[in-house]
């Protein structure tokens, strides 16, 4: 189960590098596939009678989930920043991308410098890609932790993985968490960069 995302990624990169498929198809393909996936995820949610029960069980506690994901991401960012000898505010700014690589890459490039922006882009892209491998691995340990790796992407690209491996009961929680984290990216990234 872990092997299939890795194989898919490697084949994909090789196809891309070979330049046999035109760019307009490459640009369109992921979002089209994601649309179809989210439609199916929706069917899964709609037909699951436990969804309402789960939402009631979570209640207002649901707001704690993105909060803890923020704290965990920042702690992880500080830890890696310390070992990589980075400035703490730079590391925190990159960690505050929460996997939204396009936005955090642009924000950091504009507010700091292009090299740090590239690192923010790659680190957050890697967060999204690694989530594809890690969610199937940790899903046996619990449902809620499946939402953690994807960060802001738990409302789009990692949502199908969360639902497939964690169950459609937690889909709404994942979407709420993804929306909250996405809203925080354009606030927190500039904030940490302003501390320099």
């Amino acid at each position, binding site marked *: 189960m872990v092997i299939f995302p890795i194989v*898919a990624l490697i084949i994909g990169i090789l*196809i891309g590098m070979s330049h046999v498929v035109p760019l307009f198809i490459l640009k369109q393909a992921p979002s089209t596939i994601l649309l179809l996936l989210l439609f*199916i995820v929706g069917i899964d949610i709609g037909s699951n009678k436990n969804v309402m029960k789960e939402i009631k069980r979570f209640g207002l506690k649901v707001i704690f989930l993105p909060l803890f*994901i923020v704290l965990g991401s920042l702690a992880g960012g500080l830890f890696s920043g310390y070992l990589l000898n980075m400035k703490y505010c730079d590391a925190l700014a990159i960690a505050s991308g929460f996997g939204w690589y396009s936005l955090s890459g642009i924000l950091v490039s504009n507010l700091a410098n292009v090299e740090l922006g590239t690192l923010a882009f*790659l680190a957050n892209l890697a967060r999204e890609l*690694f989530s594809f491998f890690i969610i199937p691995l940790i899903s046996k340990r*619990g449902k809620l932790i499946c939402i953690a790796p994807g960060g802001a992407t738990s409302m789009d690209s990692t949502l199908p993985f969360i639902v*497939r491996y964690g169950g459609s009961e937690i889909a709404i929680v994942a979407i709420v968490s993804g929306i909250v984290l996405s809203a925080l990216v354009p606030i927190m990234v500039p904030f940490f960069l302003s501390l320099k």
Partner: protein
Amino acid sequence: MLKLLLALSAGIIVGFVKGSFSKKDKKNIQKFMNYLLFLLILSMGAEIGYDKEIISKLPDLGISAAFISMSTIFGSILAVLIMEKILIGGQEW
């Protein structure tokens, strides 16, 4: 973003109207999802592979980027486990 929410809502309505699925149908849906997940990663990989700029930066920044992302991922997982301990005494939610 709006398109994604529309697709999701359309699916929820279809699923709600259709009601529950048989075991066989559920298996088929999961299988279909697996193919699509494979295609999703493949197509994202292809988009990355096509971009020479990303590939050319990997030797310099790849290791640091991978390390930062892994730290944030495991930090988040750990934080959620701690949250479960605090809020519901460590049972599975």
